[in-house]
């Protein structure tokens, strides 16, 4: 049973990582996303086209993605979804076009935010660190990549 679930997760993960694809993030997607990466450390970055600080640091995320050593997931969380072509073009420009990408696609944004972190009111950027052991840590605000690498190393150390 466990093995079957794991296989399923790998298949989903492979699907999600296809270039140029944006998966709709709706009710229950957060659980699904966590399930896809269960047992592996993952970094989920919530960003938006309408978030200036997010766009400023996006190229750094692209650089980080190239040698992160952990799963990286980009979730576009503009309160009103921006057009998919604009989102994909922005990700591609930051060399994030091969990164698993989702987009908020439910107007009941309170519910999406609550499922991710009951204290989150949708401020961007937000980075959620999913530990190998199932731990969850929310970091609100722009990213300290040195700290992020420290966390990554702590998670990937044998």
């Amino acid at each position, binding site marked *: 049973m466990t093995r079957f679930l794991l296989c399923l997760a790998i298949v989903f993960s492979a699907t999600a990582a296809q270039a140029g694809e944006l998966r709709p993030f709706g009710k229950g997607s957060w659980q699904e996303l966590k399930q896809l990466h269960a047992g592996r450390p993952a970094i989920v970055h919530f960003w938006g086209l*309408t978030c200036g600080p997010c766009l400023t640091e996006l190229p750094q995320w692209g650089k980080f993605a190239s040698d992160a050593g952990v799963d990286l997931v980009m979730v576009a969380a503009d309160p009103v979804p921006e057009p998919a072509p604009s989102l994909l073009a922005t990700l591609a420009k930051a060399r994030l076009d091969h990164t698993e990408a989702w987009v908020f696609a439910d107007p009941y944004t309170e519910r999406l935010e609550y499922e991710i972190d009951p204290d989150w009111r949708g401020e961007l950027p937000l980075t959620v660190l999913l530990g190998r052991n199932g731990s969850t840590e929310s970091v609100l605000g722009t990213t300290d990549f040195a700290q992020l690498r420290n966390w990554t190393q702590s998670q990937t150390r044998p």
Partner: protein
Amino acid sequence: MHRYLYLPLIAATGLAAMTASAQTQHQHAGDAPACTGTGLTCSRVATPAFGRDGVLWLTWAAGGKVMVAHSDDLARNFSPPVAITKQSVRIDNGPDARPKIAVGADGQVAVTYAVFQDDKYNGRAYLSRSTDGGASFTEPAPITADTTSQRFETAAFGPGGDLFVAWLDKRDAAAARAEGKNYPGAALAYAWAGASEKSEPGATKIAEDQTCECCRLAVAFAGPRQPIVAFRNIFDGKTRDHAVVTFADPATPGPLYRVSNDEWKTNVCPHQGPSLAVAESTYHIAWFTNGQARRGVFYARSQDGGAHFSDPMPLGAGHRPERPFVLARGKQVWLTWKEFDGDKTSVVLLHSADAGANWGTPQLCAITRGGSDHPILVNDGDRVFLSWLTREEGYRLIPVGEPS
């Protein structure tokens, strides 16, 4: 089971008008937006204002247009909506942005809104006015000649009939950047327009520099030509806490007073600005913060023109409160906000009969299980209503009480 009491007037949700129609379809994750019309049911936001004659005015944005309608019977029926914008425009749809409407004592109506003028979300704010009871509106005109960026425009008629317009303006930020200087946020800008429909906003002036660029403003009046503006400021270049400025005269913004030391040191966009009401010289303010000193939604009041505020009073603690709104009439004060408990969104109401010194118990006013606008309080003389647009239920105008 529930710690809130239902308001006795909750049955008045029957006042709902313009409820979900064929125009609205439920949008499923991943679907293209199904709603393309200009009706209220295709809008995320609806902004109300009462005229002195008891007519309710409503503005919203849908299908690329800014729309206005009015109701003589407390939202049971609305006039045919009028489009303020003739062409389709890209309306500023930030979480704290909305088209706004103000009604003067003489029945004049002013509508303001902002559009995104480029792919960098630079805004252009417009004003349109009507002096014939909303039968016609002037061609929307920019509120300022500078084209850098304006957002969160807010217009209010002062007690003397003059129209005051405040907004967040990026011209100083752009100028600083051109000189290689650091300039966080945007400037708080303002202009006056005369009482007549023809008078365009006058020269733009800057009241404060380096204020938070992504949050709504709140405007009230201390005297006929003495506006009070509440806004999220940036203290010391990084702390996004709230402030008020009271004008000494039409051209002189008074000192900036800090509402509370929440210590929200952040470079995220909070997208949550303050709400302000002023009655009998008492300032009532409600706001959201995620600061190091306190987190959540809070209320405070000042009885010395904003120089000192009471200790922040937490609202809806533990229920993920957001989007507070305050309204004051004499010593009667109403506070509302919305909460989410993992299943439903609730609008909660709190009342004070002594200018905010003491408060009653929180009362549940309305719920929804879908996307919703911010809750807004609006008054028709002494009658106070909750104005709330939700995707599932449509527009609701719910009486919340009359002073005894």
